[in-house]
């Protein structure tokens, strides 16, 4: 079975090998240091700078969270087993807050929870390719 990333432009290295999750790549403004995600060619804050690719930290803290209880309408593509309620939130990565799926159990989820970048299955292509996307999971003891 082959696997691919949902959108290569979101990641530092577009190839997925199934080992360490690929790092997220945004862009940083040379003038005002604003960090955006995904990358874009102009700065939303100032007219002076140029934007260069910027790899985001793999660790952060949950800034806000919620649950998606009902199945979203298309263009949402459910995982192969169908929609199951999932958590989403913003993760504070220091220079930027990134919206992401949160692979965190309800009992554990809270604002301030230390989390680490991972990948989770998103959906399956018509040809059977497993499509994965980025997510954050709780940081385990000893990972820091």
């Amino acid at each position, binding site marked *: 079975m082959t696997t691919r990333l*949902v959108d290569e432009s979101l990641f530092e290295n577009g190839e997925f090998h199934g080992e360490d999750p690929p790092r997220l790549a945004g862009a940083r403004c040379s003038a005002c240091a604003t*960090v955006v995600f995904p990358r874009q060619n102009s700065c939303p804050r100032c007219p002076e700078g140029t934007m260069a690719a910027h790899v985001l930290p793999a660790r952060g803290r949950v800034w806000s969270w*919620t649950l998606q*209880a009902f199945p979203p309408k298309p263009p949402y593509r459910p995982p192969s087993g169908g929609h199951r309620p*999932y958590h*989403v939130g*913003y993760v504070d990565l220091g220079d930027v807050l990134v919206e992401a799926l949160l692979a965190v159990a309800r009992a554990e989820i809270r604002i301030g929870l230390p989390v680490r970048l991972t990948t989770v299955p998103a959906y399956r292509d018509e040809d059977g390719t497993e499509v994965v*996307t980025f997510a954050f999971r709780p940081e385990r003891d000893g990972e820091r």
Partner: protein
Amino acid sequence: MSRADDVYVVGCGMHPFGRDESVTGMDMAERAVREALADAGVAWGDIGYAAGGSDVSGKPDTLVGRLGLTGVPFVNVQNGCATGASTVLAVANALRAGEACLGVAVGFDKHERGAFHVSPARYGLGDWYAETGMMLTTQFFALKTRRYLYEHGISERALAMVAARAFRNGSHHPLAWRRKPLTEQEILDSAEVSPPLTQYMFCSPGQGAAALVLALGDRAFDLCERPVRLASLAFRTRRFGSFEVFSPWLPPGPHRSPSVDAAEAVFRTAGVRPADVQVAQLQDTDSGSELVHLAETGLCGHGEQEELLAAGATDPTGRIPVNTDGGCLAGGEPVGASGLRQFHEVVRQLQGRAPGLQVPGAPRVGFTHVYGAPGISACSVLTA
């Protein structure tokens, strides 16, 4: 500014909000306009300028085929939740510029059941954002509310108080959709949608239409016994650092909403303070939004909301009555009509002829506020 340059609301009309398969968006819009014209005691042929808005239910200017082919200039507006306010702004500016002395603003919509359809391309986003299940307005409202409650030490019960008041007010309003009062506990115990928000803390996309007749200067007083003055209207888009719907990323805080900018501008121009407001409309797509907007517009301080709600200060008999018609929570949200519903309710309150619960003591200063994607807000001050 002298009275001659002032714009007044001299008539208003509204098709009941809700769900009625027997009428189209255009049917409702026509009825709202005819009602507004009758209310002002004028004919469609007297109207010198018109603006109309709808998100999904057709081109508003085709209404001339029903109302009369008079050649009137008619501007179409599609401005998300600020659609209604934008139609009022377009007509008011045309009147002040001397284009006409009588104008009509109309808004209508009829949405499908369930959450709004989204298109990532329309918002300049990659398909991945919607495909992976992050492009939902309901999630945004929950995420913003969760963070707000955390930062300001507000309990989830406050969210239920907002919804309970909305349905209580709606139960007295003949044009509202949801007219069954619900207890705070019923609201808290309803199905979880996106915590901390439950099913009854969210409004539903629905259908409806509302229209206003606006008049310039002395003409308003010829037509109407109690014209309501549009003291000011301000419309703003987001600036850097705001926390908006459909944002794959945010800058680190503090986050400043376009609602703050629009409210500050509208109060400054009108020469009134938030404390002077005696009847207010706030965008309440969900309980959390109303809670946040109470403070963002300056009607109270951040973190004061729970105490105000518990004390009944936002009830029709309170110090600062909010959403006296039940707002979006009780009315549903037909995007194009929602902003004009707010005007309709505030105008009728200031004229002392509210369709539902009347704010006692002859209120003289009214306020409206809308907020929507992708980071827009419009506020108005209306005075009796």
